[in-house]
């Protein structure tokens, strides 16, 4: 069965390539959706040498210094640029909230129109971020839109903590990051309380960094933020309810959204695809579910109506306008659900190339084998969109299947 499916898939891929035109393939993302997590261009980030730089400049400098620089001067689409030649490190926090430094592995830019949140703390630290951008709050993360007044967020003091490199402090030839001796015993420098959150409409570029291993970086004012996962960049979200699970409202994304010309660079070549991010498919929507999240009844009914339209739209996309599917499953959940059974069946019947992403491998009860066994006829790629784990394979597979 696997052989036949593989042959058919290979033929389909070859045919696709042979007859591919200039139009990027439309890849449907089926699974729990969300939104991007980024900083405004004029936000400053702290570098490992203690200096600060606008995140826009970090992006541009890295792009310019790569051996095969990408012309990003007027490109409107989202771009993930792998950092291969540059050696850029930033102060970061380990899981135990102790400071360290981390290597920037990717920089990201996206054209964005929507709300930006200006988060200001009691001591006057400010940062402008997209609604989903997570802050370090205790041992987990809270997106800007879910922050509450007086909630404590992690801060480090960039001035005394991250002075210029000293002997033995930073790296050993770029292959290993060591912790500065003076910082080893220090916990996170401190906590600052949210004083205000202002929302403004913004239209323009937003930026982000991916930081290896530790996944946090620090703004110019010392606020510690979580980086965006690679997956979040190419599809609005695969992290689902990992961040703030207790406050996650079902069907938060209720319409299919399309992102055009998402360019993924792999091994010196690039793959350009259109991504259709769809609401989670279901066979039932009950507006009373929303009432449990302190949503007024009128709003709950409106949300449920939007959710049903979104699911119907997602099914229509699948039948009519999708060239391939990334099917995202929560590896900590039972894959034998009716929706999964039906959707995989529908995708197979349309003979669409499909990659199954077993997300959330960072969770203790993650079980990738269970997904592989449930859908043995398809390639299953384990990943943690939240932690950024195994993203190289994710991108290799996307390039191979959909390139």
């Amino acid at each position, binding site marked *: *069965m696997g052989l*036949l499916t593989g042959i058919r898939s290979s033929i389909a891929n070859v045919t696709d390539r042979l007859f591919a035109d200039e139009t990027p393939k439309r890849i449907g993302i089926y699974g729990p959706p969300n939104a991007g997590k980024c900083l405004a261009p004029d936000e400053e980030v702290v570098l490992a040498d203690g200096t600060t730089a606008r995140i826009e400049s970090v992006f541009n400098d890295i792009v310019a210094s790569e051996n095969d620089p990408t012309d990003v001067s007027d490109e409107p689409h989202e771009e993930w640029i792998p950092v291969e030649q540059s050696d850029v490190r930033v102060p970061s926090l380990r899981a135990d909230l102790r400071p360290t430094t981390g290597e920037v592995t990717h920089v990201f830019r996206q054209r964005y129109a929507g709300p930006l949140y200006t988060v200001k703390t009691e001591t006057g630290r400010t940062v402008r971020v997209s609604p989903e951008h997570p802050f370090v709050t205790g041992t987990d993360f809270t997106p800007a839109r879910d922050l509450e007044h007086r909630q404590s967020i992690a801060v480090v003091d960039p001035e005394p903590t991250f002075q210029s490199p000293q002997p033995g402090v930073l790296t050993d030839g770029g292959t290993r990051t060591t912790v500065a001796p003076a910082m080893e015993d220090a916990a996170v420098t401190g906590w600052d309380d949210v004083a205000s959150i202002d929302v403004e409409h913004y239209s323009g570029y937003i930026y982000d960094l991916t930081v290896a291993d530790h996944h946090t970086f620090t703004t110019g004012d010392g606020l510690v933020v979580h980086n965006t996962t690679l997956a979040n960049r190419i599809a609005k979200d695969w992290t689902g309810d990992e961040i703030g699970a207790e406050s996650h409202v079902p069907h938060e994304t209720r319409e299919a959204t399309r992102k055009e010309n998402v360019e993924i660079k792999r091994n010196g070549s690039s793959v350009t695809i259109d991504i259709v991010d769809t609401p989670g*498919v*279901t*066979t*039932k*929507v*009950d*507006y009373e579910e929303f009432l449990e999240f302190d949503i007024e009844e009128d709003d709950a*009914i409106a949300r*449920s109506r939007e959710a*049903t*339209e979104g*699911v*119907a739209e997602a*099914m*229509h996309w*699948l*039948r009519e306008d999708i060239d391939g599917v990334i099917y995202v499953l929560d590896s900590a959940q*039972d894959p*034998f*659900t*009716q929706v999964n*059974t*039906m959707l*995989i*069946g*529908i995708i*197979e*019947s*349309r003979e669409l190339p499909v990659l199954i992403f077993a997300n959330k491998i960072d969770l203790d009860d993650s079980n990738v084998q269970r997904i592989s066994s*449930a859908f043995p*006829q398809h390639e299953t790629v384990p990943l943690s969109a939240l932690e950024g784990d195994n993203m190289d394979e994710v991108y290799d597979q996307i390039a191979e299947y959909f390139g």
Partner: protein
Amino acid sequence: MAKATEAREGVQIDLISGERMETKATMEKIRMILDGVHDGNIVILEEGLTPDEESRLIEVTMSEISPDEFSGIEIETYPRGAAEDGGILDRIMGRRDGSKLTVIGPANRLQTLHKDETLIKALVSQ
């Protein structure tokens, strides 16, 4: 019909044979299923639906969801290719991927308790 069913203090089950569905167009099948579900019945299809029909069933179901009246369907079939392995020939021959018993009911009345490759347990409430 729902009132009559409730008056008898039971849940009506419609068992629809493959033969009965065979000659119907996709929308006729979906209409038959959803009309039964709207009446509060549990609909059991001897041979199930094709993937395309399942896709359209979801789409039509979404369009008919209405607050306080209809919150959608619960549907259960065995996972594809697990309970049976005869689907390959069907696919090569362009046929649908085997026939599978399918149970469909109102979301507020049919609840799945357990599901794996070969067993589905569900609870039907009044």
